[in-house]
């Protein structure tokens, strides 16, 4: 856009875009604001915008009553754990497909992605029963496993597209320089792929953090991550808007911040490299 734009036009664009942006963002903003109100202020009519007595009380109440940090920690363990395990399984596979492509490589990749097309509800019953029989219901390890499997195809695909941008010459040079397979991957490939791996990790933590089918169906209390913990607010008792807001704010804040930092890579990751 090298052309000069009239300032009036630019001002109009700015007003329109900020208006739309704030409208879309408003529910989040409102939730955050409400989390600092008292319950009475939270439901006041007409609504109170900023002129209320700011309090952190709701945050303390949420933590005291329902041990918020346990669920937060569950979310961390499950999302980070499943992402890292997925990465360990996916790096060798992506290396193989990116650097030793065969006739069937594309088919294998498509098949891996197609497992994402399988509706989770189609395998809900057997998985639930397997988990029950193995004592994995409501355990973090069980959820780590499920989320690893769900996100594995995405991790493999993302790594594959990033690896393919690394010139194969450099890996061959490592081989000529006397590097074995492990040295080639650890000393040459992975350091070069750091940006791609970082965005893969970020995106998968976000997806796992927000996953709300298996986390709701396979946990009860002990291992429940934030998705399931928040769902327990769906049958309210008394006034609870401010506390709901506080719990919600804490549940979305870490991911919101991570997401804002990684939005550029997100496009590429989520579209499997189809849009850059």
């Amino acid at each position, binding site marked *: 856009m090298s052309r000069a734009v009239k300032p009036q036009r630019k001002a109009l664009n700015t007003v329109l875009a*900020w208006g739309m942006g704030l409208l879309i963002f408003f*529910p989040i903003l409102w939730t955050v604001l409400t989390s600092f109100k008292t319950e009475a202020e939270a439901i006041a009519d007409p609504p109170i915008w900023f002129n209320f007595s700011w309090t952190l009380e709701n945050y303390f109440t949420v933590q005291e009553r329902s041990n918020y940090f346990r669920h937060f920690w569950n979310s961390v363990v499950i999302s980070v754990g499943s992402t890292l395990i997925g990465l360990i399984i996916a790096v060798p596979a992506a*290396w193989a497909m990116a650097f030793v492509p065969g006739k069937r490589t594309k088919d294998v990749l498509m098949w891996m992605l197609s497992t994402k097309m399988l509706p989770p509800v189609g*395998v809900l*019953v057997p998985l639930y029963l397997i988990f029950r029989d193995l004592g994995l219901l409501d355990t973090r390890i069980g959820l780590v496993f499920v989320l690893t499997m769900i996100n594995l195809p995405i991790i493999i695909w993302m790594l594959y597209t990033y690896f393919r941008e690394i010139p194969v010459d450099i890996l061959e040079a490592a081989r000529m320089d006397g590097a074995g397979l492990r040295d080639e991957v650890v000393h040459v490939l992975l350091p070069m792929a750091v940006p791609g791996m970082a965005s893969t990790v970020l995106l998968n933590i976000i997806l796992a953090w927000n996953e709300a089918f298996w986390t709701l169906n396979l946990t009860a209390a002990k291992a429940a991550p934030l*998705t399931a913990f928040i769902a327990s607010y769906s049958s309210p008792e008394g006034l609870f808007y401010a506390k709901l807001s506080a719990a919600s704010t804490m549940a979305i804040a870490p991911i919101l911040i991570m997401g804002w930092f990684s939005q550029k890579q997100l*496009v590429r990751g989520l579209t499997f490299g189809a849009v850059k």
Partner: protein
Amino acid sequence: MSTKASRAAARLMISPSVILLLGWMLIPLGMTLYFSVLRYNLLMPGDNPFVGFENYSYFLTDPGFTAAIWNTLALVLGVLVITIVGGILLALLLDQPMWGQGIVRILVIAPFFVMPTVSALVWKNMFLNPVNGLFAHLFKALGLTPYDFLAQAPLASIIGIVAWQWLPFATLILLTALQSLDSEQLEAAEMDGASPLSRFRFIMLPHLARAITVVILIQTIFLLSVFAEILVTTNGGPGYASTNLTYLIYVQSLLQYDVGMGSAGGVVAIILANIVAIFLMRMIGKNLET
């Protein structure tokens, strides 16, 4: 570059992923198929006799099933239409020169990072609630009777909530695609006397085709399985008014403990998803292979 040694290494390195995914797919799939032909209810212990297609005929003739199919379709299509049309308009707006573009982008993308249970609960209580919700306040301020969204128009409300979550995704991808459009092309068209509308129709829209396809593909995968939003807002009700296929099967298997029926439903869901997948892949194939 490939030698026998590197090909052997490649096979070895890809096998954990293949074996895990194969197991992940085939074992539960096989069990679902097997359970779907048994009379098997967790509340009624005893042997689980083979009943053939009985579960399927019950499931397919269940009044909930037809409702769930239509609701699923309405949910997927409704959200797709809103997010793609809205996404294109927003992307066009955000692509214009303005002050604070980066911040607006951050505001617009935010809902995508909100977990489904949070967004559903926030919308349900703080906005759509007929007594204390902001919309109720707004209606009263305008002298109208508050409207009970989730009771009167449950499906439309859920479509609205889900669309709010996915609009950022569509916008971000379409915006990225738009920014990759060569501005010389547009300038050339302008020199040729093309109106803004025809510039959009003949240059921007074809350029966006690929991005739109990607949005449709990815959103459809997720939208077919919308679950948490329904669970925490309406529980599928009133009646079956907001029950989609995923939720229906969940009710039958985990709330009514009917493993047989739930499995039959699962098989049906898999078949339908595959039909959609094949249809999508055809479409994608055309748009992505170039």
